[in-house]
């Protein structure tokens, strides 16, 4: 976790986002470390990670269990603070922001998709979808909401509550909710982790589609090589470090890379 080593791991990918203006990534991390606990029982979940996420692409993060994928995503999204290092989103160094500014940043720049959906049970599907806009005090544009809900295939389920929806349908709602505010970047931690493979496949297609048609920058943590295969780029984490960085790859290539990483 010294600076030289992590600098070597820094990966730059040319930004070809919607605005295409800047050559640096929309999300960047520099020498990020994260230590849980103190003293003998402390765990170094991240040991010096630097990376840039470029706009308009789907980046997958893979790695063995406990390698620090979730930790990295939480830090990139400003949900957690690194022990050391710096994270910037859309040019703002979020590691220095207070709660109010972070909230504002989340409203404008960040969307989330959770493994366990995290829908609000008392709201209908449509209400869940527009919730981020309501929180930000923005009137939802009906055309956009309609397009979005159409795209995720929720047209005839809009007035249902989460308890009346299947897991796959709930995750569709969550995706629409993450997309509704056109965030700079969307984060997903194992979005298919709680779904069977068929449903999971549909959800992945949907995410790919949102990257393709809306140019939605997305960071997705996954265990599944098939899921990673839809990504434009696959990062491999092991023991708190980025150990491999592939471009668009097939599931087979990814599986091979995974095995290689696990063996190290």
């Amino acid at each position, binding site marked *: 976790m010294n600076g030289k080593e992590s600098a070597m791991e820094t990966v730059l990918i040319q930004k070809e986002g919607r605005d295409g203006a800047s050559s640096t990534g929309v999300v960047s991390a520099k020498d990020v470390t994260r230590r849980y606990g103190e003293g003998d029982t402390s765990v170094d979940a991240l040991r010096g990670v630097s990376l840039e996420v470029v706009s308009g692409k789907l980046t997958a993060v893979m790695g063995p269990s406990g390698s620090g994928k*979730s930790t990295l995503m*939480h830090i990139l*999204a400003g*949900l*957690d603070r690194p022990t050391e290092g710096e994270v910037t989103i859309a040019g703002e160094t979020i590691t220095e922001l207070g*709660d*109010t500014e972070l*909230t504002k940043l*989340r*409203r404008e720049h*960040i969307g*989330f998709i*959770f*493994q*366990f959906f*995290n829908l*609000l*049970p*008392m*709201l209908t599907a449509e*209400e869940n979808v527009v*919730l*981020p806009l*309501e*929180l*930000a005090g923005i009137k939802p544009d009906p055309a956009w909401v309609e397009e979005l809900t159409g795209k995720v295939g929720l047209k005839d389920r809009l007035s249902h509550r989460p308890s009346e929806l299947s897991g796959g349908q709930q995750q569709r709602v969550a995706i629409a*909710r993450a997309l509704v*505010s056109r965030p700079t970047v969307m984060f997903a*931690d194992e979005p298919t982790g709680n779904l069977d493979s068929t449903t999971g496949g549909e959800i992945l297609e949907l995410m790919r589609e949102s990257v393709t048609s809306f140019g939605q920058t997305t960071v997705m943590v996954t265990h599944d090589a098939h899921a990673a295969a839809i990504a434009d780029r696959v990062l491999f984490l092991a023991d708190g470090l980025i150990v491999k960085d592939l471009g668009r790859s097939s599931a087979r290539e990814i599986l091979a890379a995974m095995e290689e990483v696990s063996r190290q």
Partner: protein
Amino acid sequence: MIRVTLKGLAGRKLRALLTALAVVLGVAMVSGTYVLTDTIQKAFDGIFSESYEGTDAVINGKQLVDFSSSGRATVSAELLDEVGALPEVEAAAGGIIDLQSNSNPAKFVGESGKPLGGDPTFGIGLDSSQLRFTPLRLVEGEWAKGAQQVVMDANTAADHGYDVGDTVGVATLGPVKQYEITGVTKFGSVDSIGGATIAVFDVPTAQTLFKKEGRFDGISVAAKEGVSSDELVGAIQPLLPAEAEVKTGEAQAAADSEDTNEGISFITYMLLGFGGVALFVGAFVIFNTLSITVAQRTREFATLRTLGASRRQVLRSVILEGFVIGLLASVVGLFLGLALGKGMNSLFVAFGIDLPQAGTVFATRTIVVSLLVGTVVTVLASLAPAFRATRVPPILAVREGSTLPRSRFAPYAPYVALGTIVVAVGALGAGLFANGLGTKSVLLLLGLGVIGLFVGVALLSSRLVKPLAALVGWPAGRLAGSSGRLARENAVRNPSRTAATAAALMIGLALVTVVAVLGSSLRNSAQSAVEKQIDADYVVTHENGFDPFPVEAGEAVTDADGVELASQVRFDQARAADSEVDVTGIDPTTISRFYDFEWAQGSEGALDRLGGDGAIVQQQFADDHDLSLGSRFPIETASGDTLRVVVRGIYDPPELDQLLGALSVSQRNFDASFLRPRNLFTFVNVSGGETAATTDALEGTLAGFPDAKLHTESDFVTSRTKEFSTLLNLLYVLLAFSVVVSLFGMVNTLVLSVFERTRELGMLRAVGMTRRQARQMIRHESVITALIGAALGLPLGIFLAGLVTEALSQFGVGFSLPIGTLIIFLCVAIVAGVLAAILPARRASRLNVLEALQYE
């Protein structure tokens, strides 16, 4: 966000409902109090304003001595003729009527000799040729004429089945006489005059019965057309003797209602106080319930935060939730108050306080105050949980098994608690023991002290939950085996939750304990004070224990067979040195056989030297007025006479319940100077002492005097605190509301805990826990929580009562612990625990095991 909050509330209906219930009762008490007292007020206003509707001016004897049992001074019958002759006067009538002091007592007596109706018992002498002046209306029959006829009020007639033509007994100042009922009357438009009864005679009969021959209580005057009330008053004024006064009808109505207004506002404040206690307990319950729901919704708040909700939005959403619950509860409470107002009135009636009623009054003030108070209390109680909710970090949206972070202040909580307790006890001490504070500041200090003490102990109690649960949970383990032990574990799993739940119950229990301990201390002290003063086989008093009764009754007992010695004690009030003073008229030759004087100056010999102008005074009175043996001073009686007396003896009675007045004169002197003398006590010794046969015989001699009541000495001692015991019972009932509120709190916590432990309960059931065991587990948890409340509340109440008795020790009050009552309270706590567990236990036992296991 508003929508999210409201939908969230709608999605948690049961929880919202249970939370709301905690405020509903308190608000209902506030609104019920207003409804009740407004209604009583309206009835009284009606009585007073209608009393003078056709009257332009009223001439009355002056109220020379407030609260004198012989009433106001009267005016002479000649005055009526003089007034009637004035050119300004259209009509004038004299009457016997005194609604202020019941100086004309006329009690209806049924065939069995039992009194009909309650208190007061107004006797009225009505000039039926001048009906314009009276608010009384005939419902049936005719007005009474002559010494054999009476008119009865409609309430009494209906309640006891009397009709025109029937015969009824009436006891006035003398023994019961039989009268023919010629009519039934109603007091204006007032629905009910409460427990009061009215007996209407013609004027000469009333004058004779109430010993006011040739006199009137008042003269009502109507002005000629074109003469204003003020002009009329001006014209009458010069005719009046010194002890009479004239007022316009309106002014008199206002003056009459002033006294009752004071009484009513006392009732209002007292009842509002109990409503306040219920609201305070409700605030605890709401605080706790919202804290639990906030903790359970950690993930929801975190998710909202990741979706861009700001802290302020989270804060507002919880407060809004509190606001909505508070408002809804207040609306329900407001209307429930309408029913509760009636209920409280029935309660009062049951405790012998029967007040007049008119049509129900639902004032705007009632609505505003009820809604405001309920909503504000709920919102205040939701502040702390709301701030906790803002501290939920967004990361908890993605972490499993996430719990709310501990408060920043948590480490300091015990110090804050101890500090609060110290300050509270300081305030209590200052309120109770400091000299020279006004009543307002004393009440304020006491109120804040008690609230502070409760809050402090509640804050501290989460630390006490573990040891207390081990203690009070021990029987559960023995009684219910594994489910009992699990119950104990569950109770300490979340100490602050259990503590807050128990604290709500603690408040109610502490307050009833204060009442019980204080009550027993006062009662015991008062009873021993009475025992110290008298030694008699029998004592005759008024049936209600405090009014004077006819002298004839005392004499009838004295003349009975087997009576060795009897002593009469007359009573009235008079003015001395510009203040009211109780005066007793004692028989110097017999009193010392019954009453034990603690002489401070003088000796038994003083009694022999009482003579025509001697007086025996109490030490306190002597100190207050700088009197010593031989001092002379004047007293003024209700009739306007002045009596000059010389101090012959000074004695020092116990501080509590002094049986004789501050001032005692010889009976001869008393009878000569006071109008219409009546007895306060007749002390009796019989040959052979108290026996059942003698008791019967003596009671027989009193048959004609329904007002008088015979007691054995021990009966008499307990009867002295009867009123007080009634008051205690009333306080218990009013405090019971707070206990019920805390019961809702217990139901709430348990329901929420069961909900939270759905998965765990499913697991327990899956590995072999029976439904019965599941119910048992919840029930024991509930009882343990209740017992923790009792373990905190009872000692706290005893401590508070101890402080108060200490402060009262200068008045001869000694501390006494009513063990039996306290054990009953402990049982009440257990029953409360069992009751609170019914619904949650049923929910727990009905869980579908499969669904519970899949529950997320």
